[in-house]
């Protein structure tokens, strides 16, 4: 088996690397877009406006309470009704971004609410406006809580993109399927793909720990 793994790697490594590249950028786009929209959803959820906060809660609960695979199918089936020429990849990307926005919104909300309420009170007592309190006092402190959680979301997203291989969009699990059907071997390419995932997630989580330590150097 070991010799098969080496043989497959040396023959198909560009396929795996292409798959890894796709996995990484798809996960990154999902997290970056998810963070952008997730920030607004988190603010909406914390808003005093009942309509906004209820809408945000429903959005988050629906996305966190249904399987990712179902959401992928939902957008893959649904979006072409609105945009007939949309590609599978675009459908998957949109689904991942929306899914990630719900999880990221909860990270951001938790990070903001973990800031000592005394900080807000002190800022209020100084007569700062609501937007200054948020931008200059709360968010800079919340970032220290949010960034590590975002890093974890990124790692989770890297693994979740594997589900999108159902639609054959070229990420790492798709690479496995390609190699499997070419080499007529399953266990070996699966092992290779598994090792690649492992190396990436372990490296990232180690990097996150270092960043986290740096962030808290001033506490």
């Amino acid at each position, binding site marked *: 088996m070991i010799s098969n793994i080496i043989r497959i790697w040396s023959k198909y490594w560009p396929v795996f690397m292409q798959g890894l590249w796709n996995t990484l950028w798809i996960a990154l786009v999902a997290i970056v877009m998810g963070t952008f929209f997730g920030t607004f959803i988190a603010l909406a959820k914390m808003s005093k406006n009942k309509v906004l906060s209820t809408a945000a809660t429903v959005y988050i609960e629906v996305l966190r309470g249904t399987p990712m695979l179902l959401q992928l199918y939902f957008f893959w089936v649904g979006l072409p009704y609105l945009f007939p020429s949309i590609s599978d990849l675009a459908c998957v990307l949109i689904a991942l971004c929306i899914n990630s926005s719900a999880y990221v919104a909860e990270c951001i909300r938790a990070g903001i609410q973990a800031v*000592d309420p*005394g*900080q807000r*009170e*002190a*800022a*209020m*007592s*100084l*007569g*700062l*406006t*609501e937007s*200054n309190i948020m931008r*200059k*006092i709360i968010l*800079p*402190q919340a970032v220290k809580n949010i960034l590590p959680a975002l890093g974890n979301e990124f790692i989770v997203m890297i693994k979740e993109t594997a589900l999108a291989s159902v639609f054959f969009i070229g990420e790492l699990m798709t690479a496995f399927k390609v190699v499997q059907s070419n080499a007529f071997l399953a266990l070996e390419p699966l092992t290779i793909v598994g090792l690649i995932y492992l190396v990436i997630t372990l490296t990232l989580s180690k990097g996150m720990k270092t960043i986290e330590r740096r962030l808290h150097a*001033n*506490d």
Partner: protein
Amino acid sequence: MQMTDKPLIELVDLHKYFGNLEVLKGINETVHEKEVVSIIGPSGCGKSTLLRCMNLLEVPTRGKVIFEGVNIMDKSVDPTIHRRKMGMVFQQFNVFPHLTVLENITAAPILNKVMSPEAANKKAYELLDTVGLADKAKEYPQKLSGGQKQRLAIVRAMAMDPKVLLFDEPTSALDPEMVKGVLEVIKSLAISGMTTVIVTHEMGFAREVSDRIWFMYDGVIAEKGTPDDVFNHTKNPRAIEFLSQIL
């Protein structure tokens, strides 16, 4: 010390509920310009809540908070503008950990656009000088002791040139050896004519610096008067009981 008859903060029939619990049961009191008022009383009597109602950190359930003649509970009034003239110092200091000592002080005048950054910096150094922290200007608050953090919090509140300072148990979270330095800062402000309302358990200090004492019990001001009236001549059984336990 040098109190005037000019009302600065008037509390009119102030009630505050937390859920069904009535914490303030109708407060009618006035803080005059340049007056030093100490609020004393047992834990849970509502003294911190009363103080926090003055700058609407707690919004009273009903009644009026009149600051410089304006009812700041009025829906048409933006309390933010009025809070700029009411400094507050907290038990837990609440200094901003992500800003340097200097930035802690300049944040409000700069963000509220009442001073240029240069003027704010200059003023901040002057203020830091008065509390012996000028050499810490570029440090982050984590490097400060509790007493230093609280002195920083006091000058931070002073940076907006407030008309009144509200102190919420400013020495309760301090190590005993830090208390004196902080009380000295508060005392020198009081002597300089700063209107001061202080919730405190430091009875010796309250007796020494206050023009008037409010003794609170169960959501009302049960006894009030000069320190001599309250500490030496009160007839109120609750006040007698409280003072006998604490003195």
